[in-house]
């Protein structure tokens, strides 16, 4: 009988404790799936900064410490819980993990994806599952050009902006350029970056010739023959969209042979490497940050805030993947709060609120202007690298900013077609 009484009182106690949350009326939590490369070659330059950007921003949001208009706690008062998933693996794996997040973990939204291949694979699944998804880094313009989307959004501008911005900066700095070359990785990212760059150069500097067009294998790592080819060419500039290991290997190998003294090198993603390479990044390199991110960001209070919290925690300044993640989360937050006027909003309501939204984040002003309100555009900036030998700090000088409508296609036309037809309608 003692046993039965103990069990009954335990049950009563348990029921009483379980009833408390309902009685206290806790606001619901918002669950997010955050997907980026946590292992593999893309982890160090992109995946980890993206993940860290999410972690630090969500912490600040949950504590209500973000500056206005982001000062509400979490999303609309509800704390945000994040589940971090590794993007590594085949596209099939990635899609499986996406389904797990949406169906098993029942997240309210998925924010992530670096590889354009993965973005393209996840998009139809997101639409099928009616799962709100925000791509934060992948660059392919195709996502919203192929088909209208309802649940997929991308706050960060796509890769066309990077190539057009690079061409505009190069032509601004070297008006009489006659010959340039390119070395890009032989896969979608490298091929598309080069195609857009060459297309833009044809429009902006019709007399300049693309001399050596090199496409080494992704992760080739050894570029001796390519560097020799470039040394024996007559080009005045070199375009590369190399990233991580390939970028750093290329920089070490070309510096040992003085290539950067022969020609100006434009590295469209080099901002992710500059804090690691420091004095090993050649002075005079034209640096891109896929937008007005990192050292190319404007010195606004919100940028100062983001830069501070990130650097304090991770001991290294935030690079563009961290900025892209921050912008994506802040955009999602605003959409959520706009839709949450009457209680916790569902995916349809958030999507309707997200469409066409405009806001200003650490990387500047975003307008969801393309892809029927699903694809964001921002201004971009390019600058020239200089390692300050006195302060021993990397610096970017000679920054030129290009307004959003100058380097992004207008709505209703595919990016590559826009470039091929002379970038009509560009507002510079």
């Amino acid at each position: 009988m003692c046993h039965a009484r103990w069990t009954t009182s335990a049950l009563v106690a348990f029921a009483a404790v379980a009833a408390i949350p309902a009685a206290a009326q806790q606001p619901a939590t918002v669950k997010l799936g955050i997907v980026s490369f946590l292992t593999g070659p893309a982890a160090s330059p992109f995946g980890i900064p993206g993940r860290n950007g999410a972690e630090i921003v969500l912490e600040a949001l949950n504590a209500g410490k973000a500056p206005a208009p982001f000062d509400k706690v979490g999303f609309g008062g509800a704390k945000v819980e994040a589940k971090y998933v590794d993007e590594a693996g085949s596209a099939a794996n990635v899609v499986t993990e996406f389904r797990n997040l949406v169906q098993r973990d029942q997240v309210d939204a998925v924010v992530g994806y670096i590889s354009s291949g993965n973005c393209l694979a996840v998009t139809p699944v997101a639409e099928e599952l009616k799962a709100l998804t925000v791509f934060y880094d992948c660059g392919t313009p195709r996502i919203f050009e192929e088909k209208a989307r309802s649940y997929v959004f991308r706050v960060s501008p796509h890769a066309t902006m990077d190539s057009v911005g690079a061409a505009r900066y190069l032509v601004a700095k070297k008006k009489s350029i006659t010959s340039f070359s390119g070395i890009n990785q032989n896969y979608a990212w490298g091929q598309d970056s080069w195609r857009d760059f060459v297309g833009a150069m044809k429009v902006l500097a019709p007399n300049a010739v693309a001399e050596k067009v090199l496409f080494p294998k992704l992760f080739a790592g050894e570029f001796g023959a390519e560097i020799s080819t470039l040394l024996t060419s007559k080009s005045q500039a070199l375009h590369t969209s190399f990233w991580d290991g390939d970028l750093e290997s290329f920089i070490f190998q070309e510096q040992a042979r003085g290539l950067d003294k022969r020609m100006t090198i434009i590295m469209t993603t080099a901002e992710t490497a500059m804090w690691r390479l420091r004095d090993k990044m050649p002075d005079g390199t034209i640096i891109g940050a896929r937008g007005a991110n990192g050292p190319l960001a404007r010195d606004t209070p919100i940028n100062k805030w983001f830069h501070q919290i990130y650097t304090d925690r991770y001991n290294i300044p935030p690079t563009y993947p961290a900025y892209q993640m921050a912008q994506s989360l802040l955009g999602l937050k605003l959409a959520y709060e706009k839709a949450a006027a009457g209680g916790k909003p569902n995916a349809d309501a958030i999507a309707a609120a997200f469409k066409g939204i405009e806001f200003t984040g650490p990387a500047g002003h975003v307008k969801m202007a393309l892809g029927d309100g699903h694809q964001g555009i921002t201004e971009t900036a390019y600058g020239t690298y200089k390692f300050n030998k006195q302060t021993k700090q990397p610096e970017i000088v000679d920054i030129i900013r290009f307004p959003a409508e100058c380097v992004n296609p207008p709505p209703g036309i595919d990016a590559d077609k826009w470039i091929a037809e002379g970038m009509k309608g560009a507002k510079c």
Partner: protein
Amino acid sequence: MSRFEVDGSDVLTAFAILTDGLVYAAYLFIVAIGLTLIFGVMKILNVTHGSFYAFGAYGAATAVGIYANADWPAALGFLFMLAFGMAVGLVMGVILERGLLRLVYGRDEVVVVLVTYATFLILEDVIVLIWGPGSYPAYQPLVSAGNTEIGDLVLSNYDIILVALAAGLAGAAYWALKFTRYGRLLTTVIFDRETAAAFGINVTLVYTVTFIIGAMLGALGGAVMAPKISVTLGIGVEVIVLAFAVVAIGGMGSIEGALIGALIVGICRAAAVHLVPQVELFVIYGVMALVLVVRPYGLFVRAQPRKI
């Protein structure tokens, strides 16, 4: 097209193709020699070779970090880096051979390949556990070597050292196989394991030592390349594929084959990059396919007696 005058730039391009080909061949040879040795002796297709390379590179990067901070002279630091990398290879070779491979000798070849492949995948993650997901620059030896200008072409002295190292390695391997007792034992085992065992050769010991030497050579490949590349996750993967192609061309188990295979691939690839860059990716495998059509076992494999 008749040209009786050779353009100066043509000469330079030809010279560049030759030097680039030699440098790339040196890289391939150093990486492939360990693989071909292990396959020749143990008949094991060792996918873990990529891990040896990666561990050698990470070990070298760590070593460079140590000596760069301690401010050692460049030559000493370089030798320390190589020694450190090879030591990592030695440790790994011992652990893997004694701990894992020993258990699968004599099994079906497919099983052994699966085991080495699984080990490779596990070791990729072990790298993350030990060194984290970041990348490690080890450029000090590359930079301190300086460069040499030949007309418009600038050669990195480190590349020249690489070629010299590969040539030295080829010479040492040849001498060891032909003129040392152990080398002749190895050659016998490569020829025919069973007959060698019948003659009283301790084949198990030969296997162990060969695997360890192969591991050290793979790690040496990684160590010597570390200053040129950014030591980061995934460098082992790329290298295995190239090493396999070279070994397939040269013949599994043949050191001369690895050397000639590396030279052919290196020069063809350099020519492609300079002259027809569009086919650069394809050239290595194109050459491999061509060779295998004519000589299915590679260039330097001895005729196999038919066994009943």
